[in-house]
């Protein structure tokens, strides 16, 4: 099933896939064991003439065993996940680039600050549904919405964050490792145009990106 996952191009959240794979194998083993037991029981203990069920009310020992085993497994998984979760949702300290993204029925607007390094000034550049970034750089996204809740989803980066109206979330960061064009669908129902709300992430080499910047702000 895991080969259906979209290609992972992210530098950081490789852990997402690691955890995904780990849980996949744990649940698969449990599933197979439970189903095998069930099928064996159904065959072995099917009703036969002259054969009577055994009166068994339970077993405290078994209850303790499976309660403890399950608790250990789930706590173990939780422990493994805490540090990754905290890393993934932390606000980046020294991003290489910052881009503001605004969700608005039914488009993503990407805002670049231009040469003055400040948002909200005249040289800002606003693009519709196209997010240009250089490869192998930490990109911080400042995410907001002006109407309803949208969700900024980049499957190939294992990234998802809801965009809230009138609030700016800054704890979003990614680092793309491969050039190309990737989808940014909106993952939260936002109205009748929800299915069509899709932007694109365009990852360029540093040279290409610098050239693109030059094109936008010719001096």
């Amino acid at each position: 099933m895991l080969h259906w996952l979209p290609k992972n191009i992210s530098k950081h959240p490789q852990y997402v896939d690691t955890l995904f794979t780990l849980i996949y194998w744990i649940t698969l083993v449990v599933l197979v064991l439970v189903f095998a037991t069930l099928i064996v029981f159904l065959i072995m203990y099917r009703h036969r003439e002259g054969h009577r069920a055994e009166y068994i009310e339970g077993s405290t020992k078994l209850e303790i065993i499976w309660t403890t085993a399950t608790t250990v497994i789930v706590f173990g998984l939780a422990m493994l996940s805490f540090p990754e979760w905290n890393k993934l949702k932390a606000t980046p300290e020294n991003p290489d680039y910052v881009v503001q993204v605004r969700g608005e029925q039914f488009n993503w607007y990407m805002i670049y600050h231009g040469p003055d390094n400040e948002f909200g000034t005249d040289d800002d550049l606003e693009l519709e549904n196209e997010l240009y970034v250089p490869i192998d750089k930490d990109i911080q996204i400042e995410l907001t919405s002006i109407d309803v809740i949208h969700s900024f989803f980049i499957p190939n980066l294992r990234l998802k964050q809801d965009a809230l109206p009138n609030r700016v979330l800054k704890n979003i960061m990614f680092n793309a490792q491969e050039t190309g064009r990737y989808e940014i669908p909106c993952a939260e129902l936002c109205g009748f145009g929800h299915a069509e709300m899709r932007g694109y992430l365009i990852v360029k080499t540093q040279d290409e990106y610098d050239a693109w910047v030059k094109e936008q702000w010719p001096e």
Partner: protein
Amino acid sequence: MQENENISHENNDDDQHEHAHDDNDAEQHTHEHDDDGQHAHAHHHEESFISKYIFSLDHKMIGKQFLIYGLIMLFVGGGLALLFRWKLAYPEKPLPFIGVSQQYLDDGEVVTGADKRWERIFDSEKEEWVEVNMPAGVMTDAFYNMLFTMHATIMVFFVVVPILVGAFGNFLIPLMIGTRDMAFPVLNMLSFWLAVLAAIVMAVGFFVPDGHAASGWTGYAPLSADPQWTGVGWGQNLWAISLLIQGFSSLVGSINYITTVINMRAPGMTFFRLPLVIWSLFIVAILLLLAFPVLSSALALLIFDRLAGTTFFTTTAEGGGDPLLWQHLFWFFGHPEVYILILPGMGIASELIAVNSRKPIFGYHSMVYAMIAIAFLGWIVWGHHMFQSGMQPGMGAFFMTTTMLIAVPSAIKTFNWLGTMFKGSIRFTTPMLHGIAFVSMFVIGGLSGIYMANTPVDIFIHDTYYIVAHIHYVVFGGSLFAIFGGIVFWFPKMYGRYMNDALNKIHFWITFIAFNCTFFPMHILGVGGHRRRISNPLAETVGDVVTQESLFADMNIFITMSAFTLGFAQLILVFNFFWSIYKGKVAEKNPWHVTTLEWEAPTPVPHGNFEQIPTVHRGPYEYSVPGEESDWIPQTQPEPAPAGGGD
């Protein structure tokens, strides 16, 4: 209270249990042992049609009313699902039979009757309902949003809860705890008629201008709070009002159940002699009582936002409320609600499995404690719906831990069901097949839940079809299979007849296979990043780029075909249900050889249930007791049992 000789069981013959008072037409009961005053109105006058079938105070009739109500709504909810499944498979293709033909689309040539009808609709001045929502038979995106919103709303609030809690709760609680009726029969009737009113209000919403609610069953603000974002007007208001009414219905029902279980158990029926299904319904009643007021408050605030110009769930430049507040309130209710949907299913499955394995429930006490644990944990996990919502991420760690912990009581229950089958003598009756289906589908649904509980993995699968697969494995694979099994199992007691077993088996196998073909592939869609709640998986915004979602076009068609099979298979059940009420084989009093009290009552159960209130002497699962000739001992049989039992 002294036992009447007739009540104690004769269980030394193996197959046809003849009971001294099986001739229930005699209706010999009198007021002499009417010590609880419950049925003073019941016996000696013929009831009119209205008081017997419409405004009935009898818990059994109200239970049956809820059952038929739920089955009707099941078809409404299922029909909506089939409509939008068509759109997901063929986003631009007109509906079969309803829509226009391909030729008409291509060159305007009128070929079929539907083409002619559409021609007339397009020509007429009036804006017809179908013209607005599905011009030429192709559903609009707005209509699609309305369909899936109403599908979930109806299934959750108007099908699963009314059947599990309304129908089974009403029918089973008084019978299984050994009393004559609910504590508050009038409240009970009120509960049903409020549910009918709620359904009518909800139905009206389809036909108001600008359509019904289209912001998902979760109704996230500001999409739901401000009409300008969806264009939906009174539809969303009626949605909220209908759910408010349904909330009152659940509230009076749950008060009734709690009071009845606490106060009206038969002599000797201690809490730990209650069958597990009664435990589950009791726990669920407490959850409903505490959870629904939270939703009601949120709905009231939502209505104010929509109609009175308040801003509880929206923000403005000057301030205001917060969209996340709605999510917290909704899920504070919504997560206990999920357990309300599954716990009675667990109870029913426990009965089906114990009876058909001819064994006591393995670990009865830990089964009870596990349900209590699930109910308790259900209150502190709601944040797992909001990991990506912008909730402070530190809270994610807490909610991840509590959510993961729910795996523990769920595992306890699963292992105990397996333990119940261990060394049993399993009879593969239709109810047992449904019980086994419940356990296996619940295992899949439970295990897939671990992926979402894990916050980093949830980042990816949140809002994808993985979630859709998970909820359907729990609520369809779990609750609905339990409902089907429960209907077949208790039908002889409800209507005094059997359902046709061949039809039941056909229904089971088609449903089981089609269910898995419909919902299992959704896991794969989710892993592939296919978003949920999208009207058009083939939508492309730029050029000729192949989107991730369009890779799953064939799988979507397969799912749709399976869904149609699944939907149409339910017609077998409904036909069988109504046919058997009138034409089924007449059932004896206790056809499955069950120990619990409802099978002690005559069939069909008279008003007042028992000739004499039974006295309970033992636990609910005394199957295959060593040294006993019969492999079951009714709860009413005194201990120590005389050799051979019986008279």
